[in-house]
């Protein structure tokens, strides 16, 4: 099926070091979220649902798992003829040295040859570590209607938090006249979501020049967008309404999971018209035991619940033994909470075992406790 003439490139090279032990072995986009997903499922599913056929995923940090994960384009339906998900780690080229990606723009520059093979009219640049649902086809329509040279998706953030973001200052018609990275005194609350649509031919020229510039950071926010503005190009802000979360820290990852427990949560993962696709795991449905007590929870297949689960999100294959309590917590895939153990206000990393009668986390703590190592219980 011939769809829109736009290739998507997902920047998935970041480590996400503020997620500490969660990203020791996997890159941030591969971190689990929402019971059965990985963060990168969101941009990939958005691409598939938006009718984009070709998606490049730019990987760098701890990319073995991420590479094999995203290479199976079939999971997101990106496997029709002429369609595919392509894993693009830095590679050695005939005319250049092997170089890591020096910045977000450099990651695209080093793959100009890949993009050229599809000869797209438009290039969509995405971040691999945000949680949101967005129809990029609508954004492309907006880009075309406004005869823009580049369109940047923005979201309104509370004014007091605006200085944490890259802020777009716009005229009433949505034309961007200024971009400020983390301004002390923000003039607007429109934060860049790191989602860009470019006219590919124009961007290509700019990237070629940028590669040769020794003073450049090779970054979209720091170099490319300011350069476009300096050149007097027409940059449009595309206002997004809906759920959007950058899960940079353990607290925000926990919070994003907790958001799913609300009755009318904005992300709405059960919308049949915009499904989020992920790996198909072969497990039983979840089992709820005779003594179990579940209130306000998000639970997926493969879980076994014999104890108490309140206000918590349980990922694939998590087990809660009898008499155990899981309160205000997130249990990542295959976590085992043994009999009588208690988990409070914690995020337990993949496969970690909380031993019998052990207790982790604290109801009064300011931050969420990350439990990344086995906790011994009563033997």
């Amino acid at each position, binding site marked *: 099926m011939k769809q829109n003439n736009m290739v998507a490139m997902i920047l998935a090279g970041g480590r996400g070091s503020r997620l500490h032990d969660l990203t020791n072995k996997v890159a941030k986009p591969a971190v689990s979220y929402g019971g059965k997903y990985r963060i990168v499922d969101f941009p990939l599913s958005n691409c598939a649902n938006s009718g984009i056929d070709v998606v490049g995923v730019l990987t760098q940090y701890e990319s073995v798992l991420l590479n094999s994960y995203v290479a199976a384009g079939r999971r997101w339906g990106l496997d029709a003829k002429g369609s595919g998900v392509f894993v693009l780690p830095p590679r050695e080229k005939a005319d250049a040295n092997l170089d890591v990606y020096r910045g977000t723009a450099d990651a695209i520059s080093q793959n100009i040859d890949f993009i050229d093979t599809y000869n797209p009219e438009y290039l969509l640049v995405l971040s691999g570590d945000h949680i949101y649902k967005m129809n990029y086809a609508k954004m492309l329509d907006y880009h075309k209607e406004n005869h823009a040279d580049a369109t940047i998706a923005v979201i309104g953030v509370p004014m007091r938090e605006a200085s944490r973001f890259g802020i777009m200052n716009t005229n009433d018609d949505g034309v961007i006249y200024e971009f400020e990275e983390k301004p002390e005194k923000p003039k607007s609350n429109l934060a860049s979501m790191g989602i860009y649509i470019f006219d590919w031919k124009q961007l290509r020229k700019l990237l070629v020049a940028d590669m040769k510039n020794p003073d450049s950071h090779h970054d979209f926010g720091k170099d490319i967008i300011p350069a476009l503005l300096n050149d007097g190009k027409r940059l449009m802000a595309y206002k997004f309404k809906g759920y959007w979360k950058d899960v940079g820290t353990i607290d925000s990852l926990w919070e994003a999971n907790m958001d799913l427990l609300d009755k009318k949560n904005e992300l709405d993962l059960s919308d049949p018209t915009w499904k989020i696709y*992920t790996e198909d795991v072969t497990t039983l449905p979840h089992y709820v035991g005779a003594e179990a007590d579940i209130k*306000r929870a998000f639970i*997926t297949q493969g879980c076994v619940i014999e104890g108490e689960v309140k206000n918590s999100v349980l990922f694939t294959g998590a087990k809660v033994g009898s008499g155990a309590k899981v309160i205000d917590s997130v249990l990542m895939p295959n976590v085992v909470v043994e009999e009588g153990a208690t988990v409070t206000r914690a995020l337990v990393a993949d496969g970690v075992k909380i031993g019998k009668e052990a207790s982790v986390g604290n109801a009064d703590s300011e931050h969420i406790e990350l439990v990344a190592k086995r906790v011994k219980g009563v033997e």
Partner: protein
Amino acid sequence: MAKAFGIVNTAGNHIWVEGLENYRTIGAFSFLGRYRVIDFPISNFSNSDIEQIKVFVRRKPRSLIDHLGTGRHYSINSKRGKLQVLFSENSADNDIYNTDIAAFYENLDIIERMHEQYVIIAPNYMVFVQNFDALLQSHIESEADITMLYHSVDNAKEAYLNCDLLNLNKQKGVLSIEKNRGTAKNRNIFMATYVMKKDLFIELVKKARKISSMYTLPQIVNRECEELDIRGVAHRGYFATITDFKSYYDANLSLIDSKMAASLFDEDWPIYTRTNDSSPTQYFEECDVKYSVVSNGCLIEGSVENSVIGRGCVIRKGAVVKNSILLPGALIGEDARIENQVVDKRARIIHAKEVIATPEKPGYVRRDDTL
């Protein structure tokens, strides 16, 4: 290359599951929330490295075809393997002509073209796991003409009433095959699973056609018991037949028990099914769920006990679901009380406040129905 190809066979005309079978063949019945009955035989084949699988379907194929798709989800190699659905023209005059032999005969050209030397035939209306490769090896070593799989039960008086049973001699030789008429407790229930050479299978199909248009595979095999070396092999582990409404209901509820489930599901023997990309299930503040198996994509505000909940079901505030099976997409409205029911796909219980039957005679709510 595997030495055998697989056939998934349909149930005989004497088997009819009231209600559910009006809409689909037994293989396409929803089972334990996220599975279909046919996932078990096909996963058994796939896990046994038998990747040429012929699925026969006689009537109401829509749901089955939709579920099987390309067969990729069964982990069958997409080049070397193949999952093929074979139809047969049903005789409109009289259902007695619509036998499995008639279906095999109609597709005999395909069976003759298979390269594999052996065929393994398994039913689409029974739930069990079996390593077919091991069964094939024991068949070859025994030098028998036909190997038949059976399960010894001690409740044949009240259960398995529509199934065949094997009469065996002490050396496990099959003396005869007959219908279970409930006359004795201890019986060897035939699991409708055969191993034989492809050539013998073709010969039997042709022979059966000559003898009688009504002949079925078990009937022709029974007739050959004296001529051929036919042996029984006992199966161990979980075994359930879906041969009437009650057995469907009982089989689903029996697997809520985690020990029982452990006798069927093994990490090293995955049961594959088609993903539906449903989100996890959401439990709300007011819910109360005990001793149940729950699939993904549900919204649960009410009470659930001793029940199997399919994908994407909605159980509203104050609703009570007890000893019941909800097929995917069922909706139980506010304060409705459901006991001992099978609620078919997308049925909605909104206006009725009580739909109650007994465990001995469970009730059925039709597909897409609103009560």
